[in-house]
């Protein structure tokens, strides 16, 4: 290879943001609206769901009928580029531990994939150590973030219902969709069991958003995960980055993998260096402020890789906390069949992209053998067939009488089998729990001392183990799911969870709620950033992804990432005005 030199991007910016997902998108939007000049450095290509279309496509338009590939782990129609493994960009694990790391390299990042579940953290979620003595309290409380949740609700849109539950704060909601048929069975089962089943809270526009002509309302195809051509749901690419760029204050540098945060002798950040994936040349870009939003683990990696003589442990890491207290949600599920629904009448049941109902955490941990709670998401109905449809009918058609009332032998072939697929269509349902784990110093990511990726950037090595707390929580989920299935009149069809398989508890990382690696706090010795997501060690460095979370709640992290990023962005605007940055 010929010599290469590091090229300097000539334009100087006020703020350089690394990553364009929920945190980066919100920062770009908020700063740009205030007239601040921003550059967003994104590791993947440009993407626009109105142009890169998957929505309303039929299964046969994918040669594999929507099955997953190494390029799209959640199916051939999933909008997200990337997955558990990226070619030439490995990660490793330590001492036989496991961690699954989902990376989406594209404009909008993982918001192009997510389930649009938009839950606020409640008052208890910020101060849980004060309640049960575990983990750490946040330096902020619900009252600090509530105004930003309100603004996010109004800017982006979320449907839901006012419930007045103490730790499930209500938002400024659009009207929710009515439950589907199987969801009505579940709701009735919940009423019998004393388990709350309420309208779900998803960032999908069941009504047009007031004062926003750029986005259309939902037309109920249930395909949010494919990307929405009318921007009727939230993804950072369509809802935040697009208007931010339209303001004229934002440049995007796509396909740019950031290596390091650049620093000067005063210990301030001066910009970032990156490799352009298209021409493989090395570049730097300068800015007065650097904002990391590359995902909790990727931002930690970036800081740990930004070593210098002044910062031998990496940048903004005098505490040694960067990479530690890594958290993912607990998760497990159960599937069943509702015999009442066999042979059901056909109608369009697509609805919105996801569950119309959910169960927020409802129990008192004082009476349980594990800390913290979980919420339950539900699935089922007459979905569009895709790869896997009809699999293992031999486990179903021998268990229940067929259309003519006669019990058949399991399996079979021919016209009678063909009719079984029709008969059992739409009778399956299932549920998944998403719970809170306890943050631990010994669950972490660090730089692998021997491995680099194809750009020569040292990679992450993970060390993550579930404790008894999480395993007991998964056990409780399974007991609850079984009760709900039975009370709905259903039968469990999925494999029984046992002690040996940790009660089906998903591998750490698999729920894709990674948070905690650059946590916030008032004590610079125990935390990486302050309550404004500003590095204790460097006043012009901020982190706005899930890395700043002190604990995770049993809520999906996106809405809190958005609210905190907006709060941080307003703080940056004020500090720039005061010339403090």
């Amino acid at each position, binding site marked *: 290879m010929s010599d290469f030199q590091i090229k300097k991007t000539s334009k100087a910016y006020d703020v350089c943001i690394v990553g364009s997902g929920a945190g980066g998108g919100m920062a770009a939007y908020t700063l740009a609206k205030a007239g601040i000049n921003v550059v967003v450095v994104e590791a993947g290509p440009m993407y626009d769901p109105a142009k890169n279309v998957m929505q309303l496509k039929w299964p046969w*338009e994918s040669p594999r009928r929507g099955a997953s590939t190494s390029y*799209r782990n959640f199916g051939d129609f999933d909008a997200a580029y990337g997955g558990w493994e990226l070619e030439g960009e490995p990660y490793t694990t330590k001492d036989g531990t496991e961690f699954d790391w989902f990376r989406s390299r594209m404009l909008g990042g993982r918001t192009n994939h997510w389930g649009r579940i938009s839950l606020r953290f409640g008052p208890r979620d910020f101060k849980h150590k004060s309640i049960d003595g575990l983990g750490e309290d946040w330096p902020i409380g619900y009252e600090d973030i509530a105004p930003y949740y309100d603004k996010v609700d109004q800017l982006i849109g979320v449907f839901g219902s006012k419930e007045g539950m103490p730790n499930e704060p209500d938002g400024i909601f659009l009207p929710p969709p009515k439950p*589907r048929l199987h969801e009505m069975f579940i709701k009735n089962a919940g009423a019998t069991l004393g388990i709350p089943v309420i309208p779900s809270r998803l960032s999908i526009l069941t009504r047009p958003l007031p004062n926003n002509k750029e986005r259309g309302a939902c037309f109920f*195809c249930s395909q949010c995960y494919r990307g929405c051509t009318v921007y009727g749901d939230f993804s950072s690419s369509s809802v935040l980055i697009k208007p931010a760029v339209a303001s004229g204050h934002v440049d995007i540098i796509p396909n740019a993998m950031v290596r390091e945060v650049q620093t000067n002798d005063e210990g301030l950040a001066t910009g970032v260096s990156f490799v352009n994936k298209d021409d493989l040349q090395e570049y730097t870009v300068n800015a007065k402020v650097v904002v990391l939003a590359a995902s909790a683990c990727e931002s930690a990696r970036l800081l740990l890789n930004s070593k210098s003589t002044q910062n031998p442990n990496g940048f903004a890491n005098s505490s040694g906390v960067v990479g530690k207290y890594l958290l993912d949600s607990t998760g497990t599920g159960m599937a069943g069949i509702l015999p*009442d629904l066999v042979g059901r009448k056909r*109608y369009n049941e*697509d609805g919105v992209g996801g569950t119309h109902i959910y169960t927020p955490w409802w129990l008192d941990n004082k009476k349980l053998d594990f800390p913290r709670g979980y919420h339950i998401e539900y699935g089922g109905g*007459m979905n569009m067939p895709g790869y896997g449809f*009809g699999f293992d009918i031999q486990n179903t058609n021998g268990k229940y009488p067929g259309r003519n009332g006669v019990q058949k032998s399991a399996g079979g072939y021919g016209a009678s089998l063909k009719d079984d697929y029709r008969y059992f269509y739409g009778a399956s349902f299932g549920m998944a729990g998403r719970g809170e784990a306890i943050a631990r110093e010994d669950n972490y990511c660090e730089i692998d001392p021997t491995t680099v990726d194809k750009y020569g950037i040292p990679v992450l090595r993970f060390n993550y183990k579930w404790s008894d707390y999480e395993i007991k929580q998964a056990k409780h989920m399974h007991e609850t799911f079984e009760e709900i299935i039975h009370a709905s009149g259903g039968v469990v069809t999925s494999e029984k969870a046992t002690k040996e398989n940790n009660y089906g508890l998903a591998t750490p990382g698999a729920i894709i709620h990674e948070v905690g690696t650059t946590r916030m706090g008032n004590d610079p010795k125990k935390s990486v950033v302050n309550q404004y997501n500003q590095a204790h060690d460097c006043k012009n460095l901020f982190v706005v992804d899930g890395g700043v979370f002190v604990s995770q709640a049993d809520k999906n992290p996106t809405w809190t990432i958005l609210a905190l990023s907006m709060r941080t962005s307003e703080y940056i605007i004020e500090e720039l005005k005061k010339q403090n940055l």
Partner: protein
Amino acid sequence: MDRRKYLKSLVVGSAGAGLLLQSCEPAKKEEAKEVPKTFTIDRTPDELKRELKLASETFFDEHEMKTISTLADIIIPKDETSGSATEAKVPEFIEFIVKDMPDNQLPMRGGLRWLDMQCLKKYSHTFINCSSKEQLLLVDEIAYPEKAKPEMQQGVAFFNLMRNLTATGFFTSKIGIKDLGYVGNQPNQWNGVPQDVLDQYGLKYDARTLAESVKFD
């Protein structure tokens, strides 16, 4: 599976194909398949490269494809509602999916060969050259997992896979979706479960749900 292992398994699989059925079938005619010109779904450059490569490869030989077609139509025949598995191009789907998911290659190839050997022993013909009656007698022995004899369990495993791929291929085709009566995947307005369906199950939305949910005229 990483890409290198995947390519390697493809090569090994194809070589094995030639050896296995050399004795009873004429040499496979190699012809380049037409590659799809465009995709109607979003494809990244890397994906497109792989799609074109898959489309240019052939896995099953002619005898295997005929056997797959016969089995597919036994599993999902034409009836008063819709056409057969082969009319829905299920064999073409199965050919594609084993290239896309190489883990299916050995169970499919070996299973087809197992089936032929059973038929050769019992009826002195490969499966496709047996009479329909003979074919069904053999299928009866492997189509019912709970009733099958222990010595037929390999056949049961193969038939389960074949039934899965046939059903998925059929019901994700235009013919199959119409047969199933799936009527979504189009812009619409969700107003809740239709009244006649609520009545059928003796259900109704409570007053609060009706008041707070989104409604369309």
